[in-house]
Every structure is written in structure tokens, then in C-alpha cells.
């Protein structure tokens, strides 16, 4: 792992964002944050990211819509959806998102998923 992967964490809950960001920094990634789809779009325009984590329930453009947008605009970008709803899994994993992770205090699943996606 020569170059550090650049990850953007998108979530409207500040503390959730913080938690994910701190864990990912600690795991050795370069991490940026965005509180909404709007903010994320601006950051993506000026920076190059390898992966985004995306909360589904957000005010404004929700995560699902935004994932569709990202998939179309930036084909190489890996997308991980994060949500409290477990029943979204089958609907979403098949198309826009590369992976789907249910929110949990234990971020191990998230980190492993990210690692796997970035190694591909």
C-alpha cells in the first residue's frame, strides 16, 4: 500500500461522521467529510476520491439518489451505503452501490468492506 486511498464520508449526523472519519484515519486512509449531498458534490468536483461512504437518510438529496448520480458521473468511484434500515440491502447492493453496511457501533464490518473494495 504505497499511496494512501482518499475516502469521503457523507452523513448528516455530525457525530456519526466524526466516528467514521476517526476510525478510517486510524486505519490509514486519507479522509474527508461532507454533511449533505450538496457539500459532497462540491468536494468531489475539486478532489479525487477512491471511495465514499454514504448515509441513506439525509435531508435534501437522499443517499440512494446520490449514489445513482455518483455511479453515472464518476464510474470508477467505489460507493458504500450506510443505513439503519436493514431491508434496503437487497434493493441497493445490486445496482448503484458497491457495498451496503448496516450502521453499528462496531465499525469492523465497514472497515473490512472498504479494504476489500479498495484492493479490487
Amino acid at each position, binding site marked *: 500500500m504505497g499511496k494512501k486511498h482518499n475516502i469521503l464520508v457523507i452523513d*448528516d*449526523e455530525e*457525530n*456519526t461522521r*466524526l*466516528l467514521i472519519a*476517526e*476510525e478510517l484515519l486510524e486505519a490509514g486512509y486519507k479522509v474527508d467529510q461532507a*454533511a449533505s449531498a450538496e457539500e459532497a458534490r462540491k468536494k468531489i468536483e475539486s478532489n479525487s476520491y477512491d471511495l465514499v461512504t454514504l448515509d441513506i*437518510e439525509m*435531508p*435534501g438529496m437522499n443517499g440512494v439518489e446520490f449514489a445513482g448520480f455518483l455511479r453515472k458521473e464518476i464510474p470508477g468511484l467505489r460507493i458504500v451505503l450506510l*443505513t*439503519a*434500515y436493514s*431491508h434496503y440491502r437487497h434493493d441497493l447492493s445490486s445496482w448503484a452501490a458497491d457495498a451496503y453496511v448496516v*450502521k*453499528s*457501533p*462496531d*465499525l469492523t464490518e465497514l472497515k473490512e468492506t472498504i479494504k476489500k473494495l479498495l484492493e479490487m
Partner: protein
Amino acid sequence: MMNFLQKGYSSNAMNDVAQILCEQAQAAECDIYMYEPYADRYRLVGSTRSDLKQFVGTLKINSSDKNEVIGSEENPLPVEIKYEDKVLGFVVLANPQNRRERIESIMEGFRVLLALLASYVQLQDEAKRHQSMRELTESFYRATNMSQLEEETVALTSKILDAQTVLLIKKEDSSYVMTAHAGVTAEQIISKSIPLNHPLLSKMEKKPRGALFLKPKLDFVTITAKSLVSSPVEVDGKVLRLLIAVNKKAVEGYRTHYHFDKSDLSTLREIAKRFSIACSRLKYQSMIESENKQLKEYTERYEEMIRNQQLHLRKMNLVHSIGNALRSSYDPSNVYKILLLGLTSGKGFAFNRALLFQRNKQDEALIGKMWLGPSDEDNVMKIWKEAEERALRYGDFSQYLREEAIVLDLEKGLTQKIKDFVIGYRGHPIFERVVLHRKILHITPPVARSLGNGISDIVSILGVEEFVVVPIVGRWDTIGVVVLDNKFTGEPVNEMDLEILKIIADSAGLALENAMNYDELRKKTLGLQQQRDIIDHLRKVSESILQSLDTAIIVVNKEGKVLECNKKLEQLLMVPRERIVDFPLRDIGELFEEMDEIAMKVFDTGKTISLSSYRTILGHRERFFDIKFSPLWGASKRQMSGVIVAIDDVTEQYKLEQERKDREKLAALGEMSARVAHELRNPIMVIGGFLKRLKKNINDPQSRERYMEIVTREVENLENIVSEILEFSKEKRGIELNTFDINDLVDEVVTLMEEKATQQGITVEKILDPISEVTADRARIKRVLINLVQNAIEATPKHGKIRVKTLRESERFRVSVWNSGEPISEDVARKVFVPFFTTKTYGTGLGLAICKKIIEEEHKGRMWAEPKVNGTEFSFEIPLKGEEEDNGKEAQHSGD
């Protein structure tokens, strides 16, 4: 002597006889002379004298010279030989030495011998003649015609008479005509036709007993006649022919005569007589033959007549069968079909084709209706054969016609060529006569050609020049026209058929008229029947409607007495009709105690009253009814004759509705739980996550401090969420109603929130109604107001505007909070009150859901959000007076 007779002089037989006589008489010489009566002379036939022998047969002595010739020398004494006074000849004996008696005895023997011989010859000739006569008679009987008879007559006459030539001459009106001849060649005949005034022939004609002519002169044939016999042939006393025999043939042997003699003449007369008889016979025979022929002709004509009669009878039978079939149907189109079938069937009239026109009296036109017959010339035989086979299956022709007509489809084939084809009959050379004068017309090719273009319309349709046009005449008038032809067989139309066609056409006309009348009658009857049925039906319907209605009906009068009820009501109350009708409504059952009053109210107002989901206990069961009280107006519509109470049992629907509501609640609860879980998962993740990090970094005081702070904040957040969830999901709680001024409440809330607004540079405006007293739970309304203002501040960009408005309406009070933020979509406006539907970063997402609950469930008001031109407005309405809860009973009055 026989030798002499058979072979004549040249046999020298008489010389031998003379020698014998000479020896017997012991004479020197002997000569024998024979008498030839036709010339009255004697001929030397035998002699012993050597100098005379050379003259035998040629020396002839006339009767008068007899004594002179022989009386001279040596006393020759002629000894006359006579038999029964008939002179046969004489014998000269020269110098006889025997005794006179002996000589005479010898002569006597000779004389007898000669006589016998003469008799023999005569008898032989007679026998031959008789034989020939028999032959003649037989041949006459054989003869079948005159010319044959004539030919046989001349041939046999020639044979019988030993005639050289025989002629048969017929007397005609202007001349004699030789009709038959024998022994004469064509070259020898100069002329066959001889004038009536011919001297010889007219002489012959005048001799009825015949005539013998010696050396007559014949100028019509080149024959030298030595002797001739003739006899007229008389039939019925009239001379018709002359039979003539000319020249006797020379015969071998000696005869005393060589010309025809009297006996020949009598024979000829016999022949003539027989010929006459034969002629008569032939005449009668031919008469009989002609009679016979005539009789045969009569027989044939008679048989023909019988055949015709039989044919006629058969056709009359057909007429009968067709007539029966025609009368059997009451469908006019079927009657037409039967008629056409009868006319074209091989078992019927066997016309090749039958074309039917119907008459349209108004337009004076004939309209093509149907055309029966093979349309395809190639398959004619096949089609007829098949039709024949079908017809054969029926013993009864009438039956065949009826059944064939039913299955016969005349819409296709020839019919297509003439369907609706129109020919005007007025002035038409054929159809005017047929339609107006009811004439059957038989058009033959010459007639067709003479009519020329005048009938080109029908000729071009038919493609033939011979056809029959038959009117179909009903009781009063011509209904239509049938055109018949024999296009394929080309057979001419039988005249006899025309007569019969007339009968058929008349029969068809009557049958058709009957069928049409029947059809009309049937339609009329059907119409009447239908009307009666409808009336019947309506009566039954109105009767049965009342009885079979699923709604229980009861009619009461002004005194509250039941006038009428239906079955459903009996079933509902489980009380028989007898216990309901005429009883006062209030006595019928619990259900009706209250209803009596309502019914009386309807009498008073004349308006319909409806109760919905009226709850009652019937037979220990909870039941719900929709009940409608309607006025029953009298005929005049001025006076009410009663009140109709219609009771619908809606228990099932009501219960189903309740179940549906319960299900909806459960579904909402399920969704709610999911949302709650989601809302809780975020803070739990954060708390858990940071607690883990805290544990990891417990020795870093800076991190420890930050993590503790985050966890504390999230726990507080969690607490808020839980308490709001509790509040939202709490059972509807009782509200404390107090009357207060809502404007004061608005002031209080705005003041409370002003600081926050000012921080954002937001101005808050108030438009307040001067009359502002409401009765409601003040604390709960305050909570709603705070929520709305707080939401407004959050939705408004910096330096925006908020406007709070109060408005008193007739029975309600409205409060609205407007903000100048971006207008929300209609979709969001609908969803915004759904629990946890949130568009903002802060808050639990239950605030508006709780507000809606307070306004709508607790205060029986209404709450909504709507996008405005330059912002969004949230509003709520509450009744001026706090609504009391009811138990579901509603009474609505509606004008009728």
C-alpha cells in the same frame, strides 16, 4: 303314238303307225292325216309311201279339197276318224286286202286310241293349266302390292298360255298405260302410253268375254302378232285393265293347233277374273292396311294421350305436393324457396333455373329477390345429381321441399347477381302484362328477337332467349314474378307445363299472402304479447321489488301504525307479517321505539332523515343499521300518506370497516417501529462507537474529554427521541379545556422564540384577529405553536421573514405560520406530518406528527401544510367550542 305326240313329226312315229295300220289292213300303202280345226284343214303326219314321207308335217289339205286330193288313185278310201262327232282326222288305205269288217275294227281301235291320246293331251294340258292356275292363285295371294301382282300375272299368264308375250295395260283417265309385260324387251316397246281411242284396245275393252284375234296389227310394240287373246279385267263392273297374250309359243311334239284358241281365251278370262279378284283383294288389303295403319295411328295417339294424361296427373300431383309444402310454411322467404325448389327440382318441374322478383307496388318495380339454379356451368350435372340424391331420400316430395327449403341458402350463388336488381314493369313489354294482366308469358327465341332491346334487361340477366315468366298472384293482386328457363339443357318449354304453372303460381300466391299475413299477424301478436308481458313484468317487479329487497321496508301512517312491510323486515325482526301490519310502530320491538319519534318528525317537516351505522342489540347481537325515513306522498303529491322507513343492515360492512381501520393501525405501527429503530440506531452507533474509542484512548486526556462530551450529547439526544416517541405513541389523553385568548398565546410564543430568530436576522410578523377567544387545552396548543415557529425559523434562510396569523371563522379558529423559506413541494407537504419524516438536521422528526395529533385527535381540528408563492405555510384550525366526543351516532338532516 305317245312318241309322236311328244316329239312331233320328226320322230317318224306316225310312219310306224301307218306301217302297222297298213299291215293290219293288208293294204298297199297307208297315209295318216290329222284334222287341225283352227284352220279347218288336214295335215299329213305319217305315211308308208316313200315318195310321201318327205312331205310328212308339211302337206296340208283344206277340208273342202279332201276328197279331191285323196279320192282318186287306186281307190284309196279315206277312212274318217271321228270321236263323238268330232273329226280327228282320216286315214288313207291303198288297196286294202283284209276284210272290210276287220279293217273297220282296226280303224275303230286306231280311232279310240287317237281319241284317248287327244284326251290325254288335253287332260295333260288341262292339268298343267290347273297347276298353273293354282300357282297363279297362290301368287296372287302372295302379292302384297299392285306392281308385284302385275309382274306375277304377266309372268304366269305367259307360262300358262305358253304365250310369247303378255301385256297388261291399265286404263287410266286419259290413256292406256302398259304397266307390266313379259316376253318383250324394252326396245320392242314403242310407247307405254296409248290413247284411249286406240281401235284395237278400245275394241278389246268392249269385249267383256274377251276376244281372239288372228294376225292383228300391233302399233305399240314391234312384235308380229300371229294370234292374240285379250280379256278386260273388271273390278266392281268397271274395266280397269286389259290382259293381252300374244303368239303362242312353239312346243315340241304335235298339236292340232298352233295359235290361241277358245280354250286359251277362256283360260285368259279365268286369269283375268282371278287377277280382278286379286286386284280387289289387293285393294281391300290396302284398304285394310290403311285402316290398320289408321287404327295403329289412333292407338298410338290414344297411348300418347294416356301418357300425356299420366304426365298431367303426375304434374297435378306435383302441384298438390308443392301446394302442400307452400301452405305448410308461415315464413314468406321459406315459401318463396319452396316454390323455386318445386319448379327446379328434377322430381318437380325440372326447370334449370328459377328467378324470383318481388313486386314493389309504390315504385311499380320488380326487385330481384332470389335465384335458384346452378351458377357454375361446369358443375351442373354434379349439382343436379346431388340434389336428386337428396330428393330421393324423401318418400314424400312435399316433405323434401319443406326440409330442403329450410337448409337452402339462397344468399350466395345466382342470387348475388340479381339481389336488389330493379326492373320497372310499367311499359315493359313482358312484365307489364305479367304483373298487371296476370298472364303467363312464354318467351321463345323468335319472340325475344322481335322484342329486341325492350327486353334486353331480362335477357342479359338470363343469358337465354327462351324463358317463361309467371306471375305470383295472391287473392287480390300480383305479389311477384318468377322467371323460369332451361339454360343448361336448352330444352324447350312444354306447353302443358304452362297451364300447370298457372295453378302453382296461384297456389304460391295464396300461400305467400297467408305467410305474409301470418308474419304480420305474428309480429302484431308478438308486439301485443310483449306489451302484455311488460305490463305483467312491471307489476310483478313492483310487487317483488318490495318483497325481495335486501332492505327492510316498513310504512307507517300519521298515527304511527304500520301500513305495509316486506319479507326482509319479517326476517329481520323474526316476527310474522300478521304481527306487524296494523300494529303501532313502537309496539313492534325495541328497535322502533326511538324511530316512532323520528317518523313523526318527518311527518312534520316533510324532509328525509337518515341515520347511519345506528347501533342496536337485536337477538342478543350487536347490530348496525343505516336507516332512512322518507315521506310517502299521495298521488297528488300534496299530502303525505305515510313515512317509508328503509332499514339496511350494515353490521357486516361496519365490522369490516372497523377491521380495516385496525389493520391500518397495525400497518402504521409496523412502519412506526421501523422508523423508531432507525432513529435510535444513529445515536446508539455513535455512543457505542465513541465508547469503544474512549476505551482505546482512555489514557489520552484530550481525546477522553472530547469523547465523553460527544457521548453525553448523544445520550441527551436519545432521551429526547424516546420521550417524544412515548408522547406520540401514548393513547389519546384527556384534554383540559379552558377558554383563553389565543392572541395572547401567540405573543407569548413569539417572545419566547424571538431571541433565536433575531440571531438569524429573521423578523417575525403578527397579524391577529381582534376576536380571539377559544376553548381548548392551552398547554397543548402552546406546544403546537412553539413547534411551528421553531420549524419556521429553521426553514427560513438568514434575514428571512416569518408571519403568524390568527383568524376567527364562523365556527372555527385558524392559526397559520408562514415562512419565507423555499416553498416545499406538494409531495413533501403531504408527508411532512408522517413520523420521522424529516428534512432538517436537528430534531427527532416527530414534532409535526405530534402537533397533528394534538390538533386533529385531541381538538377535532385540522392541520395542514401548503407551499405558497414565496414561502411555506403551516396552518391549523380548531372548533371555537371544544368538541365533545360522541359515540358514533350521527343524525343528518337533508332536504328532500
